């Protein structure tokens, strides 16, 4: 389960992309974890994420916050997406103080999340990096398309849909913001970053042509 791991891009556009999430450790702290995850979500919502969701129910652009909250159970995985490191530091500080007893993972530029941890008085316990993509790379779409599709780690945001959104923006059928939201919806867990997607589309659309 490496769904937030392989996000691609340059330092500048990745610097607005952070995910904070939690899950229970099956057989260790599963009991009572649903209530703790509800508390976790409430804390995260105070900091105005650009997306959130639970793998059990869906993301906040498809399901209501109430439904997501009510459906939380011990096998849930609760995620929220943020666009700046100051907010991430504040969240980590609050999570440390509340001491819910559930594991918390933060995804983002490692150097920055390290600073966030230090500011919150936390030390990273275990880390994970992407070693990149191997194999028949000719099968991949263009890098700019990949940066948009890989924000859903389960590959629920198809490259085909990215290309359709480019076309619809060019035809003025959709705004950049609406196209970014359309890409956000299929990512069930709620880890897709619509704010970053909009920025990436603004960069990508002028570079693409389409055959009408």
């Amino acid at each position, binding site marked *: 389960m*490496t769904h937030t791991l392989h996000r691609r891009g340059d330092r500048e556009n990745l610097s607005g992309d952070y995910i904070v999430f939690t899950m229970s450790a099956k057989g260790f702290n599963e009991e009572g974890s649903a209530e703790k995850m509800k508390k976790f979500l409430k804390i995260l919502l105070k900091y105005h994420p650009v997306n959130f969701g639970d793998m059990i129910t869906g993301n906040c652009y498809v399901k209501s916050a109430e439904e997501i909250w009510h459906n939380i159970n011990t096998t849930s995985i609760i995620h929220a997406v943020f666009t700046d490191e100051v907010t991430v530091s504040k969240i980590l500080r609050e999570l440390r103080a509340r001491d819910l007893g559930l594991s918390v993972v933060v995804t983002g530029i*490692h150097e920055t999340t390290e600073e966030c941890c230090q500011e919150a008085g936390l030390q990273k316990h275990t880390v994970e990096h992407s070693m990149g993509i191997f194999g028949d790379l000719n099968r991949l779409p263009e890098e700019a398309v990949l940066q948009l599709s890989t924000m859903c780690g389960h*590959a629920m945001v198809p490259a085909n849909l990215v290309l359709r959104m480019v076309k619809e923006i060019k035809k003025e059928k959709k705004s950049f913001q609406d196209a970014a939201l359309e890409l956000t919806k299929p990512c069930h867990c709620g880890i897709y970053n619509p704010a970053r997607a909009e920025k990436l589309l603004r960069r990508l659309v002028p570079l693409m042509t389409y055959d009408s």
Partner: protein
Amino acid sequence: MKIDAEKCVGCGKCASYCTMRGSIMSFGRNPKNPAKIYAVIDEKECVECCVCLRSGVCQQEALYQPELSWPRIVRKNFSDPLKIHPETRIPGRGTEEMKTNEVTGRFKRGFYGAALEMGRPGVGAWFRDVEKAAMALASLGVAFEENNPVTKLMTDRKTGQINPEVLEEKVLSAIIEFLIPQEKLPTLLEALKKIAEKIDTVFSGDIISRVEKDGSISYLKVFQEGSRFLSITGKSNVGLGRPKYRED
């Protein structure tokens, strides 16, 4: 996934929501009414991820998920993250891996966790390619993760052989997870190049480490010295889970 030829009007809108790049759809013509066309999904290429159906894009309600039996059900188990895997009891195709490591102690100092996510990003993988990678890794003596859906499909964990019944099944991705002693990392990195040449798809590679007592991450040096790619982003478990795994 299937399309009801009677309901489908051949608009092609669902193709944008297909996770398989390009098109795995063709068009058929209704023999009774040749003016009517309908879309057909190439069942061999479809990974049963359900993204097309869930998108709600088909206004004719022509898309439908037929009941899947063994071995085709494997496609859905690995491709649709909404399906809770019977083995891991979590939705999705992976495991808790490092996310709960301060509690489970799965990754200890002296070892690295690694994973090859076959078919990621968005290409898909046949189990025959998953087996090629698993066998190459097995020959290095890696320890496959017990609680992982790919490991459960292995008929021999020493050789990495996978149940022959599923080899012709295609999935959106399948994660091979394993542990290696730290000193074997350079050997693994060389093996990845060879696996890449043998397969008919792509894979994304992950590496996991317990942070050292002085706060350092020991594998960074190996990647720097070999001038190998390592992402600037990644996941960090910040150690808030309880009860804490007791380390020696």
